[in-house]
């Protein structure tokens, strides 16, 4: 098995252009996207805790919430009122932000309306009073998402008070950043680009290598030797898994040096994720290689695999920003889990326990793909 690994690494050593490709492409990608990317984000999951008990029969929180539901940026998953106080909804929602289930918990305290109206009155009298405050516990892992949430609330408040009532806003948004305090957009997508680049290169290398193996008769020769099918697939998986690792390392180092990204968690854990992704992708490459008669045909599979991954795996957009009809597809793309896992490790600083779900999915993905490959390779006995 190691002989096959060695062979593949050696083949690469002789092919300087491919080595350059492995290193330059991810650099180019991260630089290009880093400088140019921007997008619209909608449908972000949030929780709302509304304890506002009103003031003189005015319920200002309700006005604001009504406005929120008219707009599409925020998708209120759960709404708690004063009657739910026993559930401790504030703590519950904060916990959900910490678990990554929702992006934000928006909390209106019970004297929200009173404070707002008192602030309005004192402002009218030219006095200064503390404005009323909406508390937002925010997951800033994706800075675009975080600023969208904050901007949406701000805009809603503006609409309610300034546009509709012609008043100065007596409400401020107080944010409590749960994750990614200093995160910029580059921090958000560096893990995504890492997964994407590793996947692209592993896929390309594996599909082309196997097409060549079949076409040049080398696979026949391997199969007429004592090496087992498992060793062939395993040898390849190890070689290309290592290539994926090398690439992921280049990206991490480049992102840290060029863009000063913050890595909160253990980068080794992120590399493990990339390694698993690489192994599984090798399997896809192998299985598709039997459908391609030559290298050019193999290349035609590239967009088939790469575009859905770029668009649907949450590399640049959060999954929530993807149209609802397409979202189930996201969960069929292994890259989704790799990106989510790497992001949780690098920005949220999560350990192996918190990302055990993503790791398990990727292990299953890699195992299934490799076993299918071995099965497809079985000597025609």
């Amino acid at each position, binding site marked *: 098995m190691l*002989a096959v690994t060695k*062979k593949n690494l050696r*083949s690469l050593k002789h092919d300087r252009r491919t080595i350059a490709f492995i290193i330059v492409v991810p650099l180019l990608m991260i630089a290009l996207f880093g400088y140019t990317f921007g997008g619209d984000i909608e449908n972000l999951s949030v929780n709302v805790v509304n304890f506002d008990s009103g003031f003189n029969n005015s319920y200002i929180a309700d006005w604001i919430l009504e406005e929120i539901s008219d707009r599409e940026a925020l998708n209120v998953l759960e709404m708690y009122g004063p009657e739910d106080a026993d559930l401790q909804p504030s703590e519950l929602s904060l916990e959900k932000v910490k678990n990554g289930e929702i992006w934000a918990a928006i909390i209106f305290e019970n004297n929200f309306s009173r404070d707002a109206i008192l602030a309005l009155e004192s402002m009218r009298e030219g006095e200064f009073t503390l404005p009323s405050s909406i508390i937002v516990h925010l997951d800033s892992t994706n800075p675009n998402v975080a600023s969208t949430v904050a901007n949406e609330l701000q805009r809603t408040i503006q609409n309610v008070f300034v546009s509709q009532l012609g008043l100065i806003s007596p409400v401020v948004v107080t944010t409590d950043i749960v994750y990614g305090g200093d995160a910029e957009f580059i921090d958000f997508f560096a893990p995504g680009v890492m997964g994407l680049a590793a996947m692209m290169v592993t896929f390309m290398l594996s599909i082309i290598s196997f097409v060549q193996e079949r076409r040049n008769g080398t696979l026949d*020769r391997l199969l007429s030797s004592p090496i087992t099918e498992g060793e062939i697939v395993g040898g390849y998986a190890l070689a290309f898994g290592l290539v994926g690792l090398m690439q992921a390392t280049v990206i991490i180092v480049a992102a840290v040096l060029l863009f000063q990204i913050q890595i909160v968690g253990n980068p080794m854990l992120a590399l493990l994720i990339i390694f698993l992704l690489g192994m599984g992708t090798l399997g896809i490459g192998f299985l598709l290689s039997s459908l391609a008669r030559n290298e050019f045909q193999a290349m035609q599979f590239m967009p088939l695999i790469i575009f859905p991954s770029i668009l649907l795996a949450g590399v640049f957009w959060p999954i929530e920003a993807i149209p609802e009809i397409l979202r189930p597809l996201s969960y069929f793309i292994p890259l989704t889990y790799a990106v989510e896992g790497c992001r949780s490790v690098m920005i949220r600083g999560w350990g192996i326990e918190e990302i055990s779900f993503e790791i398990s999915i990727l292990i299953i993905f890699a195992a299934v793909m490799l076993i299918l490959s071995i099965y497809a390779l079985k000597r025609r006995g």
Partner: protein
Amino acid sequence: MMTEIEKVKRIVSASKSSDYAISTHQLAKKFDDLVAVSDLNLKINRGVLYGLIGPNGSGKTTTIRMLVGILKATSGSAMVLGEKVPIAKNIAKIGYMPQETGIYSDLSAHENLELFSELYTMDKRIFNRREKELLEMIDLEERKNSLVSQLSGGMKHRVSLACALIHDPELVFLDEPTVGIDPELRAGFWKYFIGLKSKGKTIILTTHYMDEAQRCDIVGMMRAGELIAEGSPKKLMEVTSTDNLEDAFLAYSGEVEY
């Protein structure tokens, strides 16, 4: 010491199917509607240099691919080195040179040879010795560190042959081993083949050169997936009253009376 009786016993037992290098029973392969090989019954003794001849598409390569275990037969069965195909226990004892070059063009000749020696878990010292010997035979000692992609077609073929022989197999399948090889080197190859045979190795090869076929112990003539004749070159020519195997082949093909 072997008694006479034991010797006779050995000779008799050698004719049992388990002691043939190769024996097939009604071996057949169909690709969709195309019959590539039909009802092939081959018996090839050990230590024999066996040549399969016939036009392109007559089933020579398909037969070899079934015997080395990389292509599943549609029906029938085959035994190789006393083991049912696809063989496992004795797989290290066979060598196979596919018609496509079957070597990694992004590795050097030396790296290819080393890879295949590692697949057969060969001892490093034995490998070094074998490599030297084979590189000498294929006359590529000086180019052993060149990438295969930089070698000429004939040179690639020579490296491919060396890779099939690196582990000193008992039984080798050579699919057109001398295509694109210049006459001088071809003579060298044949000297090597005869040498292998004298060491008791079994060689199955396919060829389009009739002068090569003439040097085989047994020739099998294939046409449209069928073995139409088999025997020593001398016998095949005698039966058909021809003076070369090409005419003999045409005679057996049925168009010519004999």
